């Protein structure tokens, strides 16, 4: 291989049974053409420290085991290009088992709670006839490799709201809920806010290594399915949104939150509210839209009749 000199890699190290605190170590390794981050880590293992702990298996983004942070960006080591002076760290928000390996048990639990299996009747004649068109929404979803990169960047998951399942879990849920063969009632039953809390920020979509549009292919269809089944009952968040557009032609986040959430929920999140207020993300002053009557007319004209 044509060597083009050396490169430096800074790696997060931590053995919780021995080290008091995590530390970083910098290694120098030969650079190879088209090198991936995983090549660099394997090279460190071969040249410097055989004990550097990281997970990898398939080497072609099918197993989803080599998720880590490279210069703060959540990536799969097997596909990310390596570059000099990069900093490699474990995925955030999870307990470190050792070095770059994190304990993903909490995420797995979230997925398992959503009954990640198809509940179906056995077809009368097998294989049954299925139109490919009916399965289109599932195509991309079934390529999910559960690498948890999306979970590690999800801002809502970070808030720790009880019940919010996180993008990866919602992909697994959508994969079953949107399957025409599935018989379980998944979206109508209200046990927790496993998907309605998603704020549609697209962070998960941006990091997905297998290009799943988590938002448009999983979360939005789940919300739509729920809306159809339980209109007005649990979809308060959405119906208040519609109400605000109809009556005021303007969505003021403060009013939206105050109307949509119950008092205990508001009370529990009072600190988040204060933080938002201090940062100027929400305001207590309410603006009014001029010529509101004209806008109401547009709304009325475009409203879909039930």
């Amino acid at each position, binding site marked *: 291989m044509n060597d083009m000199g050396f490169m430096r890699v800074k790696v997060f190290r931590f053995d919780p049974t021995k080290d008091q605190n995590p530390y970083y170590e910098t290694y120098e390794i030969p650079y190879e053409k088209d090198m991936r981050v995983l090549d660099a880590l394997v090279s460190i293992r071969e040249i410097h420290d055989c004990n550097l702990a990281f997970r990898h*298996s398939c080497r072609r983004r099918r197993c989803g085991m080599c998720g880590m942070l490279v210069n703060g960006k959540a990536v799969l080591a097997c596909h990310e*290009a390596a570059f000099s002076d990069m900093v490699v760290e474990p995925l955030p928000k999870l307990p470190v088992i050792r070095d770059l390996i994190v304990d993903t048990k909490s995420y797995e639990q979230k997925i398992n709670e959503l009954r990640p299996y198809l509940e179906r009747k056995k077809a009368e004649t097998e294989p*049954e006839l299925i139109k490919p068109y009916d399965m289109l929404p599932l195509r991309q979803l079934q390529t999910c490799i559960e690498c948890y990169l999306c979970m590690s960047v999800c801002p809502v998951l970070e808030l720790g709201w009880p019940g919010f399942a996180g993008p990866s879990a919602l992909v697994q849920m959508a994969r079953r809920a949107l399957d025409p063969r599935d018989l379980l009632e998944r979206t109508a039953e209200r046990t927790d806010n496993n998907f309605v809390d998603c704020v549609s920020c697209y962070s998960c979509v941006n990091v997905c290594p297998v290009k799943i549009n988590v938002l448009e292919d999983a979360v939005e269809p789940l919300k739509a399915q729920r809306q159809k089944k339980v209109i007005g009952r649990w979809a308060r968040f959405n119906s208040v949104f519609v109400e605000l557009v109809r009556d005021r032609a303007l969505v003021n986040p403060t009013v939206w939150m105050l109307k949509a959430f119950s008092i205990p929920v508001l009370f529990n999140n009072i600190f988040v509210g204060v933080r938002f207020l201090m940062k100027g993300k929400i305001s207590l002053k309410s603006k009014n839209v001029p010529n509101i009557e004209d806008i109401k007319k547009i709304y009325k004209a475009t409203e879909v009749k039930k």
Partner: protein
Amino acid sequence: MHRMFEDVMETDVLVIGGGLAGLRAAIEAHDGGVKVLVAMKGKLGKATAAVCAYHGAAVGPWCDADDTKELHLKDVIKCGGYLADQELCKIMIDELPERLIEFERYGLFWERNDDGTIAPYLGSGHSKPRTISTWRRQAGLSMIYALKSEILRRRIPVLEDTMVTNLLIKDGEIAGAVGLDIVSGKVFPINSKSTIIATGSHSVMFPDYTPPPECTGDGPAMAYEAGADMMNMENVVYIATIDHPGTWRGIIVPTLFKIGGDVLHLLNKEGERFLERYDPENLEMATKDVVARSTYTEIIEGRGGGEEGDTLYADLAHLDYEEANNKLGDLVTCMEEMGLDIRKDYISFRPAAHETLGGVRINARCESTIPGLYAAGSAIGAIYGNDGIPGRGTGHAIVFAQRAGKYACERARQISMPQPDQELLDAEFLRVVNILDRERGLSPGEVLKKLQETMRKNFWVVKNDEGLKEALANIIRIQQEDLPIVSTSSKSKRYNIEWQHALEVINLAKVAEMMIKSAMMRKETRAMFMRDDYPQKDNVNGPQHIVLRRNKNEMHLETIPVKLTYVQPEGDE
């Protein structure tokens, strides 16, 4: 004084390995009504070669009206150089349609035609289109996720990050195994009534390989030590893979099916489509042994490119971009990430070890020659001979896993829980822990490198007696001089990957010895097994199985003729 273990685990059926075969076997045994435990080195649904599998193949309702199971059987056996165990191969062909359709009960969805029927396509080596897959040719990934969901539904316990280091024996029967939890560093016994080995292949003994790095032949090594018969260990499938970077040396450049009516073209450094010389009829759709042999010949005869002349080129420019991206997703993405344009640039490739085809000898009930020990998946030997016809890898994994699960469950229902010999347990505990206690020595990585270099030099696509002798001498030297002083640089018990690597390289060295000795015994060239000192088939003795077992501390080998019950060679085949 015997060591007391705090937590002895007990289960009716122990499944070692969590890949396609392991998970399928666990489901079957669980449904038979017994307690099942899966132990695997990685994470559930992840550390397995199957996630990269392209397809399955069977004669089902999706096939042409004139396609028959007999024809499928003939294709598979012919492609495998008549080295298949025909009884077992027939079972595989017969049960495959049911096994594949079953996956739709588990939530998988095979790609359909517009009218709703399953859409098959032609795989190289098959005489009819009977290969089926899921969207983007990711059948393996879909199959693994389907099985994973069934494991979760049934709440079958899975010990993740656990390496099984050895089998336990009581009165000549398998009574369980010893596990090493790599996260906590705990060594513990697992008592079981039946034990299924589903540990996969042992391709990691070559420097370039397609399966995951966990495929270190733990199952075959343990079974051999326990005294089980091993079969046709010399067989390895070689396949074209991306040449660099190292991480991607394992991504297949597939010539297994057509992409929108055409195949990708394989070129040498002169830009010549070299398969025109070796198989003008099938070209790139030739069977894997022809492709491997011609690739090897081109490189040996100096028509390879690259700095060391050891690479060839694949040309995708004439393929429809959308089709190529859909069916060769891995390859196209890799090329694009390297800044190559598939419409005009070539991708360089070279041969790598794909799947090893030797392993534990089983009967139709998936029993090894030791009571209580079952095997399935790539850890078994000689099901379809020694060539990889598309769909056979996933095929034998699911068929024999289902059988292994069923019969292991049957045995578990009949016997009481055995208590393994305490001496064996103590000895194994010491063996495992001693590696960590050694002060200084060789790192497991260094020893693995040596082993891989030996195998790459002397056990590559085409072999000969001289090379094999040299390889054997090297392996014996590694076993006697290097392995006793393998030690780890860190003594931490927390996810000490070197500890696991040390145990793995011991297994690999053992399996390498079996492979080399079997290869020396096979004095012929047959399908994927090639020797330049014996370039012809042995037509005097006909096709032979090579069986080996441990006899005290000696490796005993013998040949038994293949029973040609259903398909006989025609002409000079």
